[in-house]
């Protein structure tokens, strides 16, 4: 039973939260009394969980996600639910049905997405750590844009039970914090097997960070520094990698040829999975009431047209199209081969190096409205989606600034070597702080 409570009344000038708990109960444990924010697509018993969508307004989960049970068991105070792009679909948090989150580093710019609220809550000093989810960069992008640290764990390292699914084969829940230590602490609480998620593995995280990169081999893919990447970002990230070299790491040039179609493979896969996952939102078991006097499809369409924002409807339609007979072979089947090629490229490179490093994002945080065209927003995910397609761990750690805005250094590693990518990030962080 919770023995204590924490009062939480933040000055949420960045609109990081959708729901706050003014008195958050908590017990004892390694996170005793520490305020932790949880992204609003992660189920919290008794606390409204909307995925930043009108279709889930008022939905109160009757159970906790596995990660939330683990947080509570560790004594953490779950103080609120953070803003996001609706159902995780976006790179800016502008797709929230309840208004965008502002970037604490420059309120005229987006915090990144889709875990923009979690990043802003940490960067704005409202919480020490937060949970996000990462389907194609949704933890790493806002971490990079807001100047904090965020880890996308290896696929299967963290249970997805209670995460409201968008694209099951790609997404993972992961930790976000100001420092690599905070991220490691939170990862230690949430990682491990859960029988309710059959893709979760018995790989708990219990690791003491080591700031030692002597002799470490770092692969540097040319594609991460090529066309489409802001040259100033490329140069800041190269300097950061140079710092790791000064600490004794060795860099090795490499190439990921499958990058040429990785982004297309990602968007075909995630929209296809979304078209199936989001079929459950019909307003019948939860959500706004459909007109029960109308015929099923008419009532269903009405609820979903009103309840989903345009990007969610666009992705459901794209996925429906990609899976439809006549187009399945051209889109979905090809995307799955492409995904295996991405995985094979990483396996080949990581057989010769310990980690791969590059920028997290090809640009600094956008100004509001800058990415109003959907395709131009999708293109911003080019450097983060490969790790999701391959299922490997990837961390973003702050590594400097361009035009006053934070830049993220991304470290990717072998499956289940989350410890190693965190050690490399930690070594960099310790060297520059």
């Amino acid at each position, binding site marked *: 039973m919770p023995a204590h409570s924490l009062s939480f009344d933040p000055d949420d000038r960045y609109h990081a939260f959708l729901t706050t708990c003014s008195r958050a109960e908590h017990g004892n444990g390694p996170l005793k009394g520490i305020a932790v924010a949880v992204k609003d697509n992660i189920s919290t018993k008794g606390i409204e969980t909307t995925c930043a969508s009108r279709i889930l307004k008022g939905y*109160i989960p*009757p159970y906790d996600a596995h990660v939330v049970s683990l947080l509570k068991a560790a004594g953490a105070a779950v103080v609120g639910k953070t803003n996001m792009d609706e159902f995780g679909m976006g790179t800016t948090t502008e797709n929230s049905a309840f208004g965008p989150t502002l970037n604490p580093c420059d309120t005229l710019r987006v915090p990144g997405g889709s875990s923009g609220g979690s990043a802003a809550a940490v960067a704005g000093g409202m919480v020490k750590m937060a949970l996000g989810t990462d389907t194609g960069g949704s933890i790493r992008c806002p971490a990079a844009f807001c100047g904090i640290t965020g880890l996308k764990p290896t696929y299967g390292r963290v249970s997805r039970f209670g995460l409201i699914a968008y694209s099951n084969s790609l997404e993972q829940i992961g930790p976000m914090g100001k420092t690599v230590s905070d991220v490691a602490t939170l990862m230690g609480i949430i990682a491990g097997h859960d029988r309710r998620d059959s893709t979760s593995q018995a790989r708990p995280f219990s690791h003491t960070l080591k700031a030692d990169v002597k002799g470490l081999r770092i692969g540097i893919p040319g594609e991460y520094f090529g066309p489409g990447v802001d040259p100033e970002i490329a140069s800041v990230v190269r300097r950061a990698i140079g710092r790791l070299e000064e600490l004794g790491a060795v860099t090795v040039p490499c190439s990921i040829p499958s990058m040429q179609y990785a982004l297309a493979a990602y968007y075909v896969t995630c929209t296809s999975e979304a078209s199936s996952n989001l079929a459950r939102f019909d307003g019948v078991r*939860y959500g706004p009431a459909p007109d029960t006097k109308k015929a099923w499809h008419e009532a*269903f369409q009405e609820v979903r*047209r009103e309840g989903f924002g345009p990007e969610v409807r666009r992705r459901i339609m794209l996925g429906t199209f990609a899976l439809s007979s006549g187009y399945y072979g051209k889109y979905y089947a*090809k995307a799955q081969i492409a995904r295996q090629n991405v995985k094979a490229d990483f396996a080949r490179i990581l057989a010769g190096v310990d980690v791969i490093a590059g920028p997290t994002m090809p640009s600094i945080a956008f100004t509001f409205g800058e990415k109003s065209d959907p395709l131009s927003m999708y293109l911003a995910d080019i450097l983060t989606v490969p790790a999701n397609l391959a299922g490997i761990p990837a961390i973003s750690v702050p590594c400097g600034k361009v035009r006053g805005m934070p830049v993220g250094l991304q470290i990717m590693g072998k499956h289940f070597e989350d410890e190693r990518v965190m050690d490399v990030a930690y070594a960099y962080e310790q060297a520059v702080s």
Partner: protein
Amino acid sequence: MVTEHEVQHIAELADVGINKDELETFTHQFNAILDYFDTLDLVKGEQAANDELFNVMREDETETPLTQEEVLRNAPATEDGFIKAPRVM
């Protein structure tokens, strides 16, 4: 190229509904995205090898489920312990 008519058809298949005034923009965006997806034509082969997937089975044991009250709490319309839905026929 997909036409406005096809986009409307997909919207109906996906049950997301579409307003007349959205159709032109949606079709335009759809075509730009599909053009980009054409980079997948570079991928060789027709079907991904299926050698890494395996089933994870467990014993079919009964557990304590949510109560009826908990299950119905979020439903917008209920009657006699059932959830009310639009008519199917």
